């Protein structure tokens, strides 16, 4: 039989340690011995070289033997029973007697083999009562520790007292697996590592994978001589996965590391939270240290207990933080009851605003104004950061602990802006708030005196070296924005948004007030204009006309026809101006409508108007037709004016060859017509057979000074229909027009129907 060892002899160094196959070292630590048996026939396939030292049998004596032969029938049966009942878990080891010595045997499956690891010694029954006491102790911790950190501290203290290690650290990972010593219990005379940070490269990915798989690792003596594992050389590249083996030999890099920091023995317990490696309980001893399996399980229980509490504690911490934030917020908002931009200046400098999300600086921006507090970059830089963030994402909330990834220029401002948290409250108005965090490096305090840092040799790793590495990894980064901090910022942003909108409303209100003042002034001036129209414009115009007519009346014989013509033209102009002024005056009077509406009989109004225009009507051979019109709520003189304008319009725009026929009829009651408040309306139609107009002008004709015809053809101020529109508006009604060129025009008046 040819046997061989399976020791991995590849050279591992810092540059390739990321790829080191640490699960198959092919060797073990010497504080126990290992055999691996085939599942199918229980023959021994692998055996560690130190079997001789423990059971006085050399590997070649054991390999390819059946366990029943080696262990004896009863022990073999015990093993089979254990495997069947425990489903190959090694949480509580099997006790075995071999050659008169007691062993704790951990058994687990590895591929198509079982790995049996033998460690000498058996626990006493007092261990069991210790378990009970420990479990009771947990309840006390829970009550005693008010925060996750305190709980970790308690677990560290307790683990040290159970195991007796010189140092017990609770090590916590961030999302990138950079580590931090979160709690520590240690011998008084050794240096503290509390708060020390390590880069994720200190524990490479494959090591983390093993930590997740194998929750407990023990190194009894870093200076151990690795014990090779032998196997029968019956196939090439035969190997044994020791990933879950307790005795697995340690990576030479890790050993080197431990050497460098002067550690003699370690125990590492994985802290799993939601299937992720949350942290580690790392126990260090400065000399050789072995702890038996029951102590290990006790320590592991501490770990389980801790992780079971992480969720609860984290939620509680966030709750506590949220409570602090809310009270800070209330305090802050209470201080700012005045509503102007200065109040944002006040808010920005409140230290609570920084405290609520653990930021180092903050800026509130509104329009082009920036109000800042704490450590912030220049206003110009803040603006360009905001612009860059807006380009980067269209979200309203943008945060990053590494701004440099989004905004490369941040590299030069990591003293203020390594991390940011932006709440964009109104993109159009450019309102929002942005918090800043500086580079984490600035915050990290090196526990103890850095000059005392342990550096064994220049190339070796040490906490000091790790810190340097960690600094590289953490360059340009701030601490992570935590859930509770984000929540706090969001809560603040929400109230700020309210505040800002209130401010905007009040600013708008102020603007409206100013505007309304102006409007009042303008109105007052307008009234003045009316006064001027009547007395300063109308009067001279009238006089021009009267005196011109006086010349013509008295001296026409003495005047040349050219003079007479000129005077007449002058007179016509004055007359036109007169019409314009009085129409504008009428129109503006209608604008300032405040008459009360009374019942007006439209039939009577139309009759009156027809009487008044009788002369014109006769002169143009016009016919006015129509029937009874309803009574409406209105202002009599306005309605009078309305029909005067409409009928005059029809008379004016008659076709030269056809005698005008104007029909004024009540057509129907319309429910909910367009452009009007819903309700019932009387539709009264004024229709003529005149020159009409193109329907495309049907809205334009109601505008002031809109004239569709040349002055020479038709006289008029261009206000008549605008006035009609105004009058209808004053009656809560509407006038619409339809026309067809050379066929006629049709105006429909909608009056609210009387109930």
């Amino acid at each position, binding site marked *: 039989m040819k046997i061989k060892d399976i020791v991995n002899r590849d050279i591992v160094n810092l540059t390739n340690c990321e790829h080191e196959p640490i699960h198959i070292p092919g060797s073990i630590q010497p504080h126990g011995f290992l055999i691996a048996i085939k599942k199918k026939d229980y023959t021994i396939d692998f055996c560690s070289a130190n079997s001789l030292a423990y059971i006085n049998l050399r590997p070649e004596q054991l390999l390819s033997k059946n366990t029943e032969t080696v262990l004896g029938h009863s022990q073999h049966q015990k093993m089979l029973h254990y495997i069947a009942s425990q489903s190959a878990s090694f949480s509580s080891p099997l006790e075995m007697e071999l050659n008169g010595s007691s062993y704790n045997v951990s058994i687990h499956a590895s591929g198509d083999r079982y790995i049996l690891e033998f460690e000498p010694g058996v626990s006493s029954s007092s261990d069991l009562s210790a378990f009970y006491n420990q479990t009771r102790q947990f309840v006390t911790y829970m009550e005693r520790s008010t925060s996750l950190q305190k709980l970790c501290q308690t677990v560290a203290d307790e683990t040290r007292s159970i195991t007796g290690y010189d140092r017990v650290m609770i090590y916590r990972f961030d999302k990138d697996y950079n580590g931090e010593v979160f709690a520590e219990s240690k011998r008084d005379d050794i240096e503290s590592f509390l708060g020390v940070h390590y880069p994720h490269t200190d524990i490479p990915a494959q090591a983390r994978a093993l930590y997740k798989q194998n929750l407990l690792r023990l190194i009894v003596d870093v200076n151990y001589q690795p014990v090779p594992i032998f196997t029968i050389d019956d196939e090439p590249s035969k190997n044994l996965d020791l990933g879950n083996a307790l005795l697995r030999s340690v990576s030479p890099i890790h050993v080197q590391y431990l050497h460098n920091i002067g550690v003699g023995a370690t125990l590492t317990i994985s802290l799993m939270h939601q299937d992720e490696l949350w942290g580690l309980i790392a126990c260090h001893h400065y000399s050789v240290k072995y702890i038996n399996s029951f102590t290990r399980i006790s320590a592991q229980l501490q770990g389980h207990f801790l992780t079971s509490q992480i969720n609860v504690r984290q939620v509680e911490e966030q709750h506590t933080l949220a409570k602090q934030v809310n009270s800070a917020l209330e305090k802050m908002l209470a201080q700012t009851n005045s509503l102007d931009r200065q109040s944002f200046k006040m808010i920005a400098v409140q230290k609570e605003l920084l405290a609520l999300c653990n930021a180092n600086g903050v800026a509130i921006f509104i329009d082009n104004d920036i109000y800042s507090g704490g450590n912030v970059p220049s206003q110009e830089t803040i603006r360009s950061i905001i612009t860059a963030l807006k380009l980067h994402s269209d979200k309203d909330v943008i945060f990053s602990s590494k701004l440099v990834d989004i905004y490369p220029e941040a590299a030069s401002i990591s003293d203020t802006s390594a991390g940011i948290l932006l709440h964009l409250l109104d993109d159009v108005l450019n309102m929002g708030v942005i918090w800043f965090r500086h580079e984490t490096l600035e915050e990290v305090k090196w526990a103890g005196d850095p000059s005392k840092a342990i550096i064994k040799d220049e190339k070796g790793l040490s906490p000091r070296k790790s810190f340097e590495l960690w600094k590289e990894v953490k360059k340009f980064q701030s601490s992570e924005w935590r859930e509770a901090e984000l929540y706090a910022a969001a809560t603040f942003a929400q109230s700020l948004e309210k505040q800002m909108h209130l401010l905007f409303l009040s600013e708008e209100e102020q603007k409206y007030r100013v505007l309304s003042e102006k409007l009042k002034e303008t109105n007052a001036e307008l009234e003045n204009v009316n006064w001027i129209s*009547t*007395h300063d414009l*109308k*009067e001279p115009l*009238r*006089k021009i*006309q*009267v*005196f011109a*007519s*006086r010349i*013509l*009346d*008295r001296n026409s014989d003495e005047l040349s026809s050219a003079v007479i013509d000129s005077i007449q033209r002058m007179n016509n102009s004055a*007359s036109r101006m*007169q019409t314009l002024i*009085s129409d504008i005056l009428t129109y503006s009077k209608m604008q300032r409508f405040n008459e009360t509406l009374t019942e007006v009989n439209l039939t009577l109004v139309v009759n009156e108007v027809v009487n008044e225009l009788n002369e014109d009507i006769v002169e143009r051979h016009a016919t006015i037709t129509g029937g009874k019109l309803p009574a409406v709520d209105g202002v009599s*003189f306005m309605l*009078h004016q309305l029909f005067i304008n409409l009928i005059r319009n029809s008379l004016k725009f008659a076709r030269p060859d056809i005698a005008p026929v104007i029909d004024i009829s009540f057509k129907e009651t319309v429910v909910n017509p367009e452009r009007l408040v819903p309700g019932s309306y009387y539709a009264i139609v004024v229709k003529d057979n005149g020159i009409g107009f193109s329907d495309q002008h049907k809205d334009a004709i109601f505008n002031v000074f809109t004239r569709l015809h040349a002055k020479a053809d038709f006289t008029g101020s261009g206000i008549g229909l605008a006035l009609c529109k105004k009058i209808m508006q004053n009656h809560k009604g509407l006038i619409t027009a339809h026309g067809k060129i050379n066929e006629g025009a049709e105006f429909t008046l909608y009056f609210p129907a009387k109930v």
Partner: protein
Amino acid sequence: MGQNDLTIFYADDDPDDQLLFREAVAGLEGPFKIQVKNSADELLTELTNSLVAPSLVFLDLNMPGKSGFEVLEEIRQYDQLKNLPVIILSTSDDKRDIDEAKNRGANFFITKPLSYRTYKKAIAYSLSINWEKFKANRENFVYTD
């Protein structure tokens, strides 16, 4: 009251209108005596203190100080002036002004015409009215050419 001593009062602050009025009356047949006043107060003082009994008053509405409407109202407060014919001679043709004038006791309303000829006709017409018999109503209150 004979035609011989027909005393006509006219209150208007505008000298042009005063000129026109004088001319228009001068062109008419009859011994009219014209008293032109520049303001409401002047008119009221004259009306209440003058020994000459006024036959007819032409009154402008828009004057500095008291307006024509106020004068009208004051005139009607004096017993001796209660039946004095008051003719409004105004630029306004606003229906509301016309209504108000009538309500306050004016007897007749002339919108200052734009032609001299009409102006003279309007003045002549109002002087031809037999005021003792004339009763203002909706139809005859406003002068129409």
